[in-house]
């Protein structure tokens, strides 16, 4: 597997808590920590191809599952999904939360994603691509929910990321930029929004993105290219409108000041 985002943004201590909270055994924990140790505090570079212990265990277990008699493999399938959960539930939850902007709904759909994964484990042909496969399930689940509920809002950027204390000015700036980005994202087509969030926020590679979107690499790249341009234009429009609103809001105050 090329990139393990479940083990990228948090320090090992925090991530270890999360993995074990997922009900994982020692091998899962070791796997996540191995990845953290290799790339502490940052995303694994794209193209890195080593497998963590957890990933190797996953590959082994899926191989065993393939060889198991049909009548005996349900428990084994559950164990594989348990490992997938330990490795990826945090990033899947973050993705769904970002798409839907409702924490409880994101939790429900994360659960649903892993239940669907359990039921469709036979379709996981290459365990090394389990992450993209999970994103594919989560993406379809999110888009179905969005279509059903017509939710187009996104989580605002709180300015809490980065790990360093931000000044009040920086926090205010981040909040403004977050609001702009949120509205710009909401303004672009759903499919493009999904692609750019998966590619940029969750850092799926081109191959992973194609798998997650369920399209060819060329088609995924085309959607992503359109998404970049749509978002750029939407952000420009949003900033222009914000500037107009700023002038509109400032004008009465300035008039009042002049009257004094």
């Amino acid at each position: 597997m090329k990139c393990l985002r479940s083990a990228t943004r948090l320090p090992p201590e925090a991530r270890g808590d999360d993995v074990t909270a997922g009900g994982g055994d020692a091998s899962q924990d070791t796997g996540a920590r191995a990845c953290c140790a290799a790339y502490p505090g940052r995303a694994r570079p794209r193209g890195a191809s080593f497998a963590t212990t957890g990933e190797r265990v996953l590959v082994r277990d899926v191989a065993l599952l393939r060889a198991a008699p049909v009548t005996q493999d349900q428990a084994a399938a559950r164990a594989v999904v348990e490992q997938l959960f330990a490795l990826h539930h945090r990033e899947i939850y973050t993705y769904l939360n970002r798409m839907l902007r409702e924490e409880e709904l994101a939790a429900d759909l994360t659960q649903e994603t892993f239940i669907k994964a359990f039921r469709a484990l036979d379709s996981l042909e290459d365990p090394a691509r389990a992450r993209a496969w999970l994103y594919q399930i989560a993406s379809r689940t999110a888009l179905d929910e969005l279509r059903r509920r017509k939710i187009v809002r996104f989580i605002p950027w709180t300015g809490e990321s980065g790990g360093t204390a931000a000044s009040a000015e920086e926090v205010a700036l981040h909040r403004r930029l977050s609001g702009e980005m949120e509205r710009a994202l909401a303004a672009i087509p759903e499919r493009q929004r999904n692609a750019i969030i998966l590619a940029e926020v969750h850092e799926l590679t081109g191959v992973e993105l194609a798998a997650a979107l369920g399209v060819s690499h060329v088609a995924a790249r085309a959607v992503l290219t359109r998404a970049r341009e749509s978002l750029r234009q939407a952000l420009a429009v949003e900033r222009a409108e914000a500037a107009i609103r700023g002038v509109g809001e400032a004008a009465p105050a300035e008039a009042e000041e002049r009257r004094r």
Partner: protein
Amino acid sequence: MKRTTDIHGPFRELLARRLDEHLAPPETEALNRHLRTCAACASVDRDYRETRHLLRALPDATPPRDLWARTSTALDRALVGAP
């Protein structure tokens, strides 16, 4: 107006692609040559990079602590219901 779009369109596509993959040397050379003389495309290049920076700065969310317990229970139900 359409002519302007046609001139810049391929370079805008290269700018977007460059964020995700290595371009072929002739493509890189052509793009860099164009960027040296085209302020509009250079501006788009900056916009794309800024957008990437803003998106990647979005914080991770923290799942509820009982998410595994809930999922595990649901898996057990699915296991019982499985053929």
